[in-house]
C-alpha cells in the first residue's frame, strides 16, 4: 500500500503540475522535500543518542523489566505473540508512557528501540510482524493527556480558555486509538502471517508453530 500511495503522490503531482503550469514549483518542492528529510533525520540523531544511552542504563538496572511487569496484563493482551519477559515489552511500555505524557522526543527513540527488539523475534526481517503493526497503530493514534503545543498556540492567539480543548482532544484520541486497536485486531485475524514461528496461541485458525520458540532469555 505504501508503494501505491507513494507512486500516486508523485504521478498525481506531475500530472496536475503539467495542467496548472506549476512544474518549476514541483521540481523545487521535490528537492526541498529531500532536504527536509535529511534535516529531520539529523535532528533525530541527538535525541536518539541521548535516550538510547539513558534507556540502556534503565535496562541494565532492571527498570524496564519492572515497568513491563507492572503493566503486563494490558500489554500481553495487545501483544499476545511477544514472550512475556522479552525486553521488547519494557521498551513498548516506555514508548507508550512517553506518548501519554506528551514527551514526544523521548517517545520516538523508545519506539524505535522497541521495534528493534521486536525485529529480533521476526523470522523475516523485511516484513512487519503483527506485534510491530500493533505498536505502530498505537503510536499513530498516540494517546496524549495534555496537548501542550496546541494549548501554547491558543494562548498565543489570546484564547479566553486555552485548555478547553483538553477534554475534546482526550475524547477524540481515545476514539481514534480504540478504532486503531479494533482495526489491528481485525487484520491480525484476517491475514495471519504465513511463516511466523512464535505463533498466536489464543487465536483460532492458525495451526502453525510452537509458542514462545523465539525470544531471548531475560535477566
Amino acid at each position, binding site marked *: *500500500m505504501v508503494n501505491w500511495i507513494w507512486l500516486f503522490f508523485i504521478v498525481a503531482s506531475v500530472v*496536475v503540475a503539467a495542467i496548472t503550469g*506549476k512544474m518549476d514549483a514541483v521540481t523545487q518542492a521535490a528537492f526541498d522535500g529531500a532536504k527536509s528529510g535529511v534535516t529531520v533525520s539529523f535532528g533525530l540523531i541527538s535525541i536518539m543518542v541521548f535516550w538510547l*544511552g539513558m534507556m540502556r*542504563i534503565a535496562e*541494565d538496572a532492571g527498570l524496564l523489566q519492572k515497568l513491563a511487569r507492572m503493566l503486563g496484563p494490558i500489554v500481553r493482551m495487545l501483544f499476545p505473540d511477544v514472550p512475556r519477559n522479552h525486553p521488547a515489552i519494557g521498551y513498548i511500555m516506555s514508548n507508550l508512557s512517553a506518548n501519554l505524557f506528551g514527551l514526544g522526543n523521548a517517545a520516538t527513540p523508545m519506539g524505535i528501540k522497541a*521495534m528493534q527488539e521486536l*525485529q529480533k523475534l521476526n523470522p523475516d526481517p523485511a516484513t*512487519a510482524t503483527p506485534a510491530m503493526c500493533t505498536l505502530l497503530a498505537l503510536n499513530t493514534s498516540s494517546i496524549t493527556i495534555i496537548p501542550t503545543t496546541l494549548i501554547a498556540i491558543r494562548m498565543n492567539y489570546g484564547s479566553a480558555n486555552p485548555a478547553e480543548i483538553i477534554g475534546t482532544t482526550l475524547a477524540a484520541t481515545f476514539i481514534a486509538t480504540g478504532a486503531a486497536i479494533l482495526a489491528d485486531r481485525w487484520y491480525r485475524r484476517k491475514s495471519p502471517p504465513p511463516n511466523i514461528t512464535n505463533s498466536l496461541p489464543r487465536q483460532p485458525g492458525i495451526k502453525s508453530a510452537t509458542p514462545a520458540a523465539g525470544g531471548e532469555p531475560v535477566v
Partner: protein
Amino acid sequence: MYNLFTNLSAWMIPAIIVFIPLYAALRRKVPVYETFVEGAKDGFGTAINIIPHLVGMMVAISMFRSSGALELMLSAVRPLFDWAGIPSEVLPLGILRPLTGAGSLAFTTDLIQTYGPDSMIGRIASTIQGSTDTTLYVLTVYFGAIGIRRTRYALKVGLFSDMVGFLAAIFICLYIFG
C-alpha cells in the same frame, strides 16, 4: 488543572534523567556512564538508517502539496462537508494531518490566527491536531529504522484510525461547543 499538568511535564524529564542513573548506580551497581555511552552508540546509526526512507516520503508529500494536487483532491470532497453542515475550512487538516506534522501544525496555527482560537473552527482544528499523530511519518521512521519493506496492513490501520479520529474530533466539538 492545566498549570498542574504543565508543571508536571516540565518536571517529568529531569525527574526521569535523575532517577534512572541514580537507581542504577545505588541499587544495582551499574557503571552508569560507561553503560550510557555503550547504549548511546546505537543512536547514530539508527538515525542515519532513517534518512533514505524519510527523504523518499518527504519528496512525495512536498511535491503533492505544491503541485496543487492536494487542493484538487479537497475540492472533490468539499460538497460532502457542506452538505453535512461541517465547516469545510478544517477539511485540509484531515488530509494533511496523517501526511505531515509540521505542515498540519502550520495549517492549524493559520486557522487559529484567521478565525480565532475560540471559534468553532479554531476549536475543531486544535482538537484534530492534538488527537492523532503523523501516521506516515511514524510509519516511515519506525519501520525505516529496522529495514521493514513489507508493511502489510499497518498503513491501512493507521489511516483508518486517523479518519475516525478526524470525524470524532469534529462531531465532539460540534456537540460540546455547539
